């Protein structure tokens, strides 16, 4: 099974990655190779097997809805690329 240029473009868009034209070519080849390797899974009979999403067959723990973390907004925002008055700044979304 091979991956097309169109597939690669769609995937890059979903993954929020830029795709230069010269890079598309190598992605097509590499993804085709990797998918060929993954394709081996299709030969295995798993008709009576439940998926195993996690090594622990348990439910995630729940805890009571109580405040556990102290307020540390300024500390956390001190490492942000751009902030103002406690908000994160990003390039304009609406004109």
């Amino acid at each position, binding site marked *: 099974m091979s991956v097309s240029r169109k597939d690669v473009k769609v995937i890059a868009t979903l993954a929020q990655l830029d795709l230069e034209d010269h890079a598309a070519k190598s992605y097509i080849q590499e*993804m085709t190779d*990797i998918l060929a*390797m*993954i394709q081996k899974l*299709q030969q295995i009979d798993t008709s009576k097997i439940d998926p195993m999403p996690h*090594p622990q067959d348990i439910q995630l723990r729940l805890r009571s809805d109580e405040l556990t973390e102290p307020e540390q907004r300024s500390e956390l925002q001190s490492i942000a690329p751009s902030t103002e008055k406690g908000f994160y700044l990003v390039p304009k979304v609406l004109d």
Partner: protein
Amino acid sequence: MNLANSGLNQIAEALDNREMSSVELCEDYLTRIDDAEQLNAFITIDREGAIENARQVDENRQSGASLGPLAGIPIAHKDIFCTKGLLTSCGSRILSNFISPYSATVVERLSAAGAITIGKTNMDEFAMGSSSEHSYYRPVLNPWDTTRVPGGSSGGSAAAVAAGLIPAATGTDTGGSIRQPAALCGITGIKPSYGRASRFGMIAFASSLDQAGIFARSAKDAALLLDSMCGYDPKDSTSLDIPPPQCTQKLETPLDGLRIGIPEEYFTAGLDAKVAEIVQRALKEYESLGATLIDVKLPNSDAAIPCYYVIAPAEASSNLSRFDGVRYGYRSEHGESLAQMYRKTRSEGFGPEVRRRIMIGTYVLSHGYYDAYYVKAQRVRRLISNDYSRVFETCDLIMGPTTPTTAFEIGAKMSDPVLMYLNDVYTAAVNLAGLPAISIPAGFDELGLPVGLHIVAPYLEEARLLQAAHLYQKHTDYHLATPDLVT
């Protein structure tokens, strides 16, 4: 005292007997790190912080205060563990300015036991790789032969311990990232059971596979560190609320009637003849020590790499979506709109292997492929896990080679991702099943490159793993060898 291969007990004893202070010890290791700068084992060295903390431990020792089991002993952390106030880059440009506001639980626990953090070790970007060549900074070199890779992704930690730049270091293992570099660098590397060590503050790659572990010069040292590092942490929802493994306490317990399963699938095409010979010799050694070798079958072994390369990239593509240039880390200056800023930041911030895995992960999770790839891989994952459960009904441990070859040359596999992925052919299945495993030095090939013996135990049986490794190390001296580079 020869720091190149001193055990933690010897170091602790020297500190206890006031033969040296912790400050002197840290200074000696810092000199060794400077002298071996060409290995590129470290991304960050915290000289001032280490000396300051060492001075504090020395003062506490003088005043007779009670000290932790690792008091004053310097260690290094893989740069995937958040360390408060220090750069935590994860080997990536996208975190190349990230000074973590908090520390990982593993880091805190080891510090609480008295360990001194001397620095952060180099690694494959976001732990994706088997050679430590995929670092944003520079590739790590193998101290046994600097034209070769140390393995990966925790290659900096492995190279640093092998070269005696530090007595022990942390690592993480998602598909073999502790055991494979431990094998290629000739040291002991253990990955505990999934859930034993907290993942809080450990930058996520594939959350259902990631587990923190230890590189050390012996099983005995690894046991001491593992005991300090593991334990329940409410900040990690997958952390097990059970008593710690108490590996040190059980280390000398005899392994009467030990049954070792030898999977026939591990000794087939693809395994280097010399590696096979050395591993067989190690198995004979266990037999002479009273163990029984049993032939076993892990029929889905071939499926481990394909299964892993669906699940790990899928989880990675989801985990790495958080890196968007908004809250922390690198932000591209080229984005005029928000969407463009996201894309430019991620394309400039992530290296080629990380982008490739995000692409694969996004593909297998996308509409139309989710069931065919992702859910299918999860079903195969259960088959792989079931294989282990069945085999462990007839044996106590599984042994085989850690890697198909010894350390390969730098650049040899960089242009062929699939070839690179096959380095984890014996290790990845263990992560899929969540089991504990260790790699210990078992000898050297004709080029003098180390070979690792891989030992896998049933879930939560870390102590048994370390007992067996310790038994071998009491009767062999491969783990005491040091590379010529080291003086």
